[in-house]
């Protein structure tokens, strides 16, 4: 919408249609100088500002390589590391589930240990994801670089972390990245 469209509707009844937009603007200003009340607030400029802010916020939200929703089940530990995250295949370990790239692989019942079958499922899911990436790479996609990022809850026992890394290693993932919250203190 253009400003002229707004003005033209306001003055449509009193001004001949042959007048240009500039003349309409001048007439309006002159009228306001004489102390007449403003008939309507022009919201077009405000709409422009709002739209720009919204687009900026959406782009900023998109810019983060991986966003995780914190919950009681998944709160990564805080770290002092300053290394920025690099997107990779995500292996998520929460209190209630194990996920590979946000797809549920194993449901964990709190208080019970993970079985060999559970770990076999994790390995299989990581292998399937690796094959998908390789398949896409053959058709022009990004190359499989062996990166895996581990997003785990801070109460996760080391045995589970260790087994997860072992599964990843067996499926040709060679670079491990621990995803942690910023703001840790020494």
């Amino acid at each position: 919408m253009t400003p002229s469209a707004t003005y033209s509707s306001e003055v449509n009844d009193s001004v001949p249609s042959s007048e240009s937009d500039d003349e309409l603007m001048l007439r309006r200003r002159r009228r306001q100088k004489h102390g007449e009340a403003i008939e309507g607030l022009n919201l077009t400029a405000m709409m422009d500002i709002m739209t720009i802010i919204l687009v900026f916020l959406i782009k900023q939200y998109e810019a983060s390589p991986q966003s995780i929703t914190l919950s009681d089940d998944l709160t990564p530990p805080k770290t002092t590391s300053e290394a920025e995250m690099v997107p990779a295949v995500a292996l998520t370990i929460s209190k209630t589930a194990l996920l590979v790239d946000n797809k549920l692989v194993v449901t964990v019942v709190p208080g019970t240990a993970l079985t060999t079958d559970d770990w076999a499922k994790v390995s299989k899911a990581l292998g399937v994801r690796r094959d998908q990436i390789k398949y896409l790479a053959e058709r022009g996609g990004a190359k499989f670089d062996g990166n895996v990022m581990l997003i785990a809850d801070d109460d996760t026992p080391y045995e589970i972390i260790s087994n997860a890394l072992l599964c990843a290693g067996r499926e040709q993932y060679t670079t491990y990245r621990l995803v942690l919250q910023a703001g840790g203190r020494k």
Partner: protein
Amino acid sequence: MAGGGGGTEELNLVPYLDIMVNLIMFMVTVTAYLVQLKEAPILAPTYGGSGGASGEQKPFLTVAISMTQIKVIGGGAIQGSEQSLKPDDFRGLTVQLRSLKTTIPNMAENLVVTADKDVPYSKVVKTMDAARDDAKGPLFPNITLSVALP
């Protein structure tokens, strides 16, 4: 708004503006609650000794975490040395590692971190943070997490 006239009607922007303002408030709130994430790269464990044919191996350290203590264990040329710390004494661990790195020449940059199976992940991360650097500079930037084979 004209009822049936042929005049140009003005688009009512107020509802649209309401939606936009609400969306922006939502986005700002969500962004404020978004967690800022960082990463700590770790090295994959390697098999076999790092020493060459000469048999000379660089001295290296292993930090073993249990529920009751943190142990700094020497390896390679300083095999046999072992020091214990309280389980939550991460500041002490940093001091200990700095002292060892200063006194022992030719120390490997790699640090092996291992833990008991029940040790929480947060404690492992705190240990890694304590070992990575201190106020004087980097300590052991390359950390290998030891993985126990079942």
